[in-house]
Every structure is written in C-alpha cells, then in structure tokens.
C-alpha cells in the first residue's frame, strides 16, 4: 500500500512524484437505464493540480468523478492513472490512490460512531495502531469535529455529516482527493474549513478535484476550472479565463454565472477579477496605485 508506508502519510505526497496524473480518454458513460451521462469526455489532470468542476445540475459532474475511483466504468473510452487503465488497478490499490467524498453524505456514512467512521478507510488501507489514531484525530481536527469522536453520525446535523464524510476521506491521505460539493450546507466557517483543507492538500502536492456550484469558492480555491454541459467538457482554464468576459457566452450556455467580483470588474473595465480580493486590488490600482490601506498589497 503506497500511503501506508509513510509515517505521517501526507509526507509521502510532499513530492508530486508519487501522485499519479489522471487522464480521461474519450470517455462515454450511460447508466443501465439508458440515461447518457458522459459523452466523449477528454480531460487530463496533472499531478498536484487543483481543479474545480462546475456545470448545470445533471451535466455529469458526479458521474465523471465516480469514474476516477472505479465506482463506475466507462461505457466507452478509458480512464488512466499514470497511463494505467483503472480497470487494471486492483480495487484496494485504487482506494489508496483516490479518495472520494460523496455529494450525499448519507450514501457514504454507515458506522455508529464518528471515530469508527473516520477510521474505516485508513484501516482498510492497512493502517493500525498509533498511526491510525493520529490520522483519525488529525482528520477530525481539520473538519472541526474533534469533540464528536464518540457521537453517532446520525445525531449530527446535515452540515456536520457532510464534514464527517470529508474527514473520512482525509484520513486515507490519498494522493488524489476528490470532493463532490464539499461546501453544501456549510456556513461561513464551514466553507473556510473546506477552503483550508483544499489549500493544505494542494500545498502538499496532492491533486485536489472538487465539484461545486459555489463560484466564489471555485474562483478562490482552484487553479483550473472545468465546465461541463450535458455530459461534455465545454470549457477549461484558469479562473480568470473561465470567469473572464470573453467566456461569459459559453458560461451562460452552460447555465452558469461568473462570481459577482468578476462581473463588476468587467463592467468597470478593470480586467479579470475572479475573486473579491482581485477586485479590490484592481480598484486600488485604478485609483492611483496602492496608496491607501494596503489595497494593492496582494
């Protein structure tokens, strides 16, 4: 088991060498009832990239990420990790490479204690003893659930069940972290926690992929944005490109809207300002540089 060998887990992924690249080669997928969910998706994600997937409801985002850990198999095309077809990678090994936090936590959670829930994944990877304890503690701390170790997951409210689903995946310390709508139901603090989790994982050189409808979170936390529409990838690029004025027609056709900061920046002719801090910086620059209050101090 790759992750199991290292004492601190995440340290093993400090170098991107151990993180596999991801490649979808003209992947199509139809559910057994005939619903076509993916059509000729081609997408390459390099080791250590942070990528947000956005798109209309039903555009195929969750279906796509379920192909990364082998939960679903393409009807046509291939999914490759470091050039190897995931069909040829043993399930247990795949579980150690790709961690997926579900959109609906109730489809993921099953244990009767929070700590057991979080321990389940790493235990399956062969982690035992003090390292297992350390991982569980760390994952609970990162998600703000430290005080809930003994709680039954079903006694937690929805937002904390969602964080628990995240913690369970964090504890596996997989080189690839996939989060399906991690900020759903989170308040300002919860969103900040998720943002920290993403930043830390990306900082460690791991690949982070998140699906989200929260364009502010997307613009602030990810280096690349992939836009899906009706089972296809229709646009991909850095947030300032995807949310930039030139891409708005395409974005609109995918039933999406750029964050307000991007819209306001474009209206004022300030250039691409996908985040609120970029907007403030640009306003400051327009007013004659970073004169006041550190507006230009970014």
């Amino acid at each position, binding site marked *: 088991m790759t992750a199991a060998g290292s004492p601190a887990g995440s340290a093993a992924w400090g170098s991107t060498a151990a993180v596999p690249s991801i490649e979808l080669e003209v992947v199509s997928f139809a*559910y057994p*009832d005939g*619903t076509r969910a993916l059509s000729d998706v081609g997408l390459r994600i390099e080791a250590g990239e942070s990528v947000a997937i956005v*798109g*209309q*409801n*039903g555009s195929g985002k*969750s279906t796509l990420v379920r192909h990364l850990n082998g939960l679903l198999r393409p009807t046509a095309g291939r999914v490759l990790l470091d050039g190897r077809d995931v069909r040829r990678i043993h399930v247990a090994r795949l579980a150690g490479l790709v961690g997926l936090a579900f*959109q*609906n936590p*109730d489809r993921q959670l099953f244990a009767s204690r929070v700590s057991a829930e979080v321990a389940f994944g790493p235990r399956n990877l062969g982690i035992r003893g003090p390292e297992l304890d350390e991982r569980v503690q760390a994952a609970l701390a990162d998600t703000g659930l430290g005080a809930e170790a003994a709680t039954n997951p079903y006694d937690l*409210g*929805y*937002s*904390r069940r969602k964080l628990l689903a995240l913690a369970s995946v964090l504890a596996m310390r997989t080189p690839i972290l996939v989060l399906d*709508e991690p900020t*759903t*139901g*989170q*308040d*300002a*603090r*919860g*969103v900040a926690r998720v943002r920290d989790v993403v930043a830390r994982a990306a900082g460690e050189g791991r690949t982070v992929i998140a699906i989200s*409808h929260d*364009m*502010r979170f997307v613009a602030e936390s990810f280096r690349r944005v992939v836009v899906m529409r009706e089972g296809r990838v229709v646009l991909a690029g850095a947030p300032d490109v995807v949310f930039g004025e030139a891409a708005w027609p395409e974005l609109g056709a995918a*039933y*999406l*809207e750029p*964050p*307000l*900061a991007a*819209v*306001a920046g474009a*209206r*004022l002719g300030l250039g691409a300002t996908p985040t*609120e*801090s970029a*907007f*403030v910086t640009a*306003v*400051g620059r327009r*007013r004659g540089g970073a*004169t*006041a*209050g*550190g*507006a230009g101090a970014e």
Partner: protein
Amino acid sequence: MSAGLVLAGASYRYAGALGAALAAVDLRLEPGRVVGVAGANESGKSTLCLVVAGLAPSVIGGRLDGSVRIDGVETAATRPHELAQRCGLLFQNASTQLSNTTATVLEEVAFGPCNLGLPAAEVVERVWWALRAVGIEPLAPRDPARLSGGQGQLVALASVLALRPSYLVLDEPTSELDPAGTRLVAEALARIAGETGAGILLVEHKTEVLAHIADDVVVLERGTVALSGPAAEVLADPRLVELGVEPPAQVRLERAVRAAGLEWSAALAEAIE
C-alpha cells in the same frame, strides 16, 4: 381568527437532549410573505422548521413550550393530515423526502396530492404545475431514485409545492442547485407567494437569494433570534458576520473596498447592481 403562522415564546428540546435547541423564539409569517431564516451551522434552523411544521414534537417527540399557531390554531391541536395541507415541509436532505414507493417522478410528485384524496384531474393539474414551476417537466418519466443531486432536490421541492399548502417551510431548498436553478426556484417562490398568497419560511445560506425575494429575515444564534427585520436591513447588519452568516456578495464587495481604505463610488455601486 388571525391569519398567519405565529410562534410566541416557542422553546423546544429534543428527546434526551440536555439543552434547548430553540429558546423563546418569536416569529410571524403572514400569508403571501417570504421570511428568510439564516444562521450558522447548528444554530437551530432545521429545528425551527420541524417545530413550525408541527413535526416537533408530535412526530419526533421532545418537548415544546410556548405557542405555535397556524391561522389561529395551535399546531399541537391539529391532526397531522390537516397540518399537511396547512403547512408543507421540505427537508434539508432532499433524499429523505422521497417516498421510495414510486417508479417515476410524475408519480412521486402525485403521491402527496393523491393522499389528500383530491380528484384525479386536479392531481394531474397540480403535478404539471409543480414540475413546470421548478423547470423539471423533462424529468417526469424518470426514476426519482436515479437522478443527480440537484435534480433530486427539485423533485422533492415539486412534491411539496404540489400539496399547495397555505404555508411552505423550505429547509435550504437550493443547496444543491446550479446558479440558474437557484434563480429559477427563487423566482418561482416569489411568484407563488405573490399569486397564491402562500406564506414561505425559507432557510438559506445563500443570502443573495434572501436579498432577492425575502421580505423579512430572521437570524438564529444558538436557538434564539439574534436579528430580525426587513431583509435589506438585516442582510447589511454588521453583526451578521459574527453570527456566522456570509453577507450577500454585494455587501461583501462594498465592505472589502471600504476596508482597503478606498472610496465606494457611485460607479462601483452601479457595477454590482
């Protein structure tokens, strides 16, 4: 008899819980109005929904003190069947809303109205009206258990709308919706309140939605009402942030510019309209 959904000094404690999840809550929802509910995680928003809809304590147990009246009648004294027609509840986790007994979205949305014993023609009319309201007519023949997260949430919402209750209690109905779907649902709710006179209690983290359609906003903090008043006032209140609530993007941008020591000009104000 006074119309409206009124909580007076309502306190509620879950069965077996040590403390109260709601404490001395006063709240008023008039017919045709939209009252937004915001608050940090665990502040009691869902509990408030359960109490308002009469599920707590009558279905889930626990202890309720104070008064919860719908159009002048205590919910505690109302039979569940009658209550369902007065007050429809959309649960936070939409998948728990599904009946798990129907093969198509059409039947799923018809399930509630059928149970009300309505004539078939009216059931059909209501079902299509509800599907149209949230923009999911094409999903009608699909299996409700095999949809995307957002599609499932829209089906659950349509199922509640089809009951045409006097009051709608919606616990984060747009949490899994894309931006266009969020806008569509917000506009549909505003229209339903305006045209049918339904009163809507709307729990939302997306304060932009509340800024758009809520008349009043209530902010909860550890089970008590920390702020309440007209939506525009509450959403611009500086205490919102301390209460764990993200102000609408417009408010955030203006604050960020001012906090950087920059002037908030008319041109900037216009750019965020």
